[in-house]
């Protein structure tokens, strides 16, 4: 009986506590499901188990003995392996080479012993019902589902005793999912300990023996699967949201009375979202909630002209628009604050002033198109004051500021443009609580000024806190719309997860990062 146990494990990234005092035990022959929202700490937990990062506190015990997993190699030696959402493979190499990479069998003179490797792999292939001829195929010629099976074979070859599946079905077809579940069942019978990470409720009852719910890096509880209902799981997942539900309720029907400012009809972006119709009313904050990969950002990027939708119409203030690129969208009065601050939002090594004025430059050109430098400085110091951006001076590189101040700077840049509608994508991800509350206040001011504001967020607390109305997306479709408060955290989350076990079929594939 192999066992893998975390005792009091915690992990901090700077000021952020990703995992807090986690006690959890995985045993051979059991499928242990981990359930939690994006950012609940599931990924951090895998990374700790597979040696990608070290915990800040606590200990890990394997077969009742304390171990230190400081490298991926060490995790391998302990028999721990993970199959990730997007398979990590060598695309131009054969399946056989992929299977044995780093653990090759050698024959005479240290040369590769292909025959021995084939002989070692064949029984495992049979176990997974794969044809032996697959060994000679190039990895890139296989579907994602088969690549996953190759990785499982690889894990078995390496005597894996704890196999972690990280949302393995999110990119699989229904048939592939069924086959995977069968294989997981067989692995369990054979005595492998399995960790199964998902946010699909219906899968948990199908496959797991026990379930642990995580929220905000904390363990909410571990239950044998037949002692917990879907409703109880949902309520555990939303357990941390109590305070948000008690906030002041916005005036009833605030959203519906106002004229729509931005309207989207039947918008489709191939592979990401389909037939999306919604509207952002003026003077109102609309929360766009959904799990990572539900197609929210892709919808926004298509509206903003960064990508082109394959079908649908977009209306701004009653006029049909079709921006070809973001600059055109901004000119029309439509803004988008990107989710990835570091890569899409700011020029890290440029000064605060250069960052804040970068999309307002035409306003500063005077005679002969020369820039009004003094005016730019006044403008910058004014924004710093109004949005409480803490920096030594306007010449400080924005990369030297805290995440919160960077985000406030970025926000001020957009807030100051004469826009009719603005979509904020994950406006407070990774910033401290103080800056978060400030930004929520600024968002409210924008709406009060009559702008139509959309807030995309995977953070349920945030959506509940800032929104007048909430649109929930799931797997590229609109799952539900809540026109006015009071919102129930359980209902909103249930819509996003699709707990009514309606979430089947092939999920929209997404390039969105795995938070």
């Amino acid at each position, binding site marked *: 009986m192999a066992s893998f146990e975390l005792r009091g494990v915690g992990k901090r990234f700077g000021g952020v506590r990703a995992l807090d005092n986690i006690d959890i035990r995985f045993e051979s022959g059991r499928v242990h499901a981990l359930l939690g929202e994006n950012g609940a700490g599931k990924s951090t937990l895998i990374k700790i188990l597979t040696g990608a990062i070290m915990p800040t506190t606590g200990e890990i015990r394997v077969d009742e003995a304390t171990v230190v997993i400081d490298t991926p*190699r060490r995790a391998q030696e302990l028999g721990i392996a993970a199959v990730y959402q997007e398979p990590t493979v*060598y695309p131009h190499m*054969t399946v056989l*080479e992929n299977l044995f*990479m*780093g653990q*090759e069998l050698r024959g005479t003179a240290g040369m590769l012993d292909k025959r021995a490797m084939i002989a070692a792999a064949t029984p495992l292939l049979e176990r997974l019902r794969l044809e032996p001829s697959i060994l000679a195929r*190039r990895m890139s010629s296989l579907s994602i589902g088969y690549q996953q099976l190759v990785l499982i074979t690889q894990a078995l070859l390496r005597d894996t005793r704890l196999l972690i599946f990280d949302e393995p079905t999110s990119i699989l077809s229904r048939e592939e999912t069924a086959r995977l579940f069968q294989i997981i069942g067989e692995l369990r019978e054979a005595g492998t300990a399995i960790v199964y990470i998902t946010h699909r409720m219906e899968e948990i009852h199908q496959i797991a023996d026990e379930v642990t719910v995580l929220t905000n890096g904390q363990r909410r509880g571990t239950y044998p699967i037949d002692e917990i209902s879907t409703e109880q799981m949902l309520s555990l997942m939303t357990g941390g949201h109590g305070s948000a539900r008690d906030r002041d309720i916005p005036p009833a029907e605030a959203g519906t009375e106002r004229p729509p400012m931005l309207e989207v009809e039947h918008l489709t972006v191939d592979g990401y979202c389909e037939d999306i119709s919604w509207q952002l009313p003026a003077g109102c904050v609309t929360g766009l909630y959904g799990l990572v990969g539900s197609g929210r950002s892709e919808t926004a990027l298509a509206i903003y002209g960064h990508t082109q939708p394959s079908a649908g119409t977009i209306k701004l203030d009653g006029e049909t628009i079709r921006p070809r690129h973001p600059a055109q969208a901004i000119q029309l009065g439509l803004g988008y604050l990107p989710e990835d601050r570091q890569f899409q939002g700011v020029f890290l090594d440029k000064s605060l002033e250069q960052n804040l004025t970068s999309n307002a430059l035409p306003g500063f050109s005077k005679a002969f198109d020369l820039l009004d430098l003094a005016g730019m400085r006044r403008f910058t110091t004014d924004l710093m004051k109004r949005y409480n951006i803490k920096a030594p001076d306007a010449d400080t590189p924005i990369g030297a500021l805290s995440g919160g101040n960077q985000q406030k700077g970025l926000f001020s840049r957009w807030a100051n443009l004469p826009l009719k509608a603005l979509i904020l994508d994950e406006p407070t991800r990774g910033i401290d609580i103080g800056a978060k509350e400030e930004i929520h206040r600024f968002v409210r001011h924008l709406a009060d000024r009559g702008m139509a504001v959309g807030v995309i967020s995977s953070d349920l607390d945030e959506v509940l806190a800032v929104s007048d109305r909430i649109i929930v997306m799931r797997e590229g479709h609109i799952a539900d719309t809540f026109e006015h408060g009071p919102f129930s955290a359980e209902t909103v989350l249930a819509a996003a997860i699709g707990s009514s076990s309606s979430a089947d079929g092939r999920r929209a594939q997404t390039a969105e990062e795995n938070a």
Partner: protein
Amino acid sequence: MASTASTGSRWPSWINISARELLLIIGVIVITAGISIGSHGNFWNDSNLTNLMINTAITLVPAIGMTVIILTGGIDVSVGSMLGLVAVAGGTAFEHGVGLAAATPVFLVAGAILGFVNGALITYGRVPPVIATLGTLSVYRAAAFIFLGNHWITMIPPSVTQAMVLTQPLGIPIAVWIALVLIALCMVFLARLPRGRHIFAIGNNENAARLNGIPVERIKLAAYTLTGVLVGVAALMSLGHSPMVQTTTGTGFELTVIAAVVLGGTELTGGRGSLLGTLLGAILVGLVQNGVVLLHIQPFWSGVVLGVIILVSVGSATVRRAAD
């Protein structure tokens, strides 16, 4: 045109000829025919053939190392300056009366040091390969200027030419035999030893390689150092061919080497390619340079041809990837 798996092939698995390599063989035949007709028989005389073979060997030896580097997803654009600086070091040894046997280690060690510096900058200094070697391209060239000034090294002992070029077992110069032995060894290494496959793995997916416990940094460092050593070998060969060192020795050589590798089908994005392709690529590049001389075409045209070769090869790889 996926290089088909070796099952069912009549060839031993490490030869494994792909469609591209077949195309290169046809290219070699066609260009050879073209030059022999256009040059009125000058192509087939002994001195031209020796000339062609030696030049090809001088390109091929560093191209072996370059192939390994590019397979890992890197590149070394400094080999021209490296060849120049190694030639200055070795040539200076000759000037001080050191004989061939004692000077050979000077060439190899000098090359190893320069290659190691490149590799260290890239692996431990975390400088992107193009930038790191662009920097050393400039530094190594400047160093050659500082050591040599206006001086030319002409006191290369005749024994070098004798050993490298004039001794011709089976009608093939020693330099060419050295190149063939080196490439054969490296082909076996890449195809049959785990380390060889690790090189491909790094170019395919560096992070996965690291997760599989492959010492990525050490392997890359070794690849750049190996290339330095091979440049040392090439420098010695080139002194046997034209016994003179000046500050400009080796200028533009990197382009020839990279062209041979890329023409041979090794992809600049890493993870895919072959040494057989590099061998054929080096022969083709040698033929083009030889043909330009024999057909009395202005020499700068060979630069145009090399540049176009690189662009077309990279372009066709992009098309192929899009088709995958």
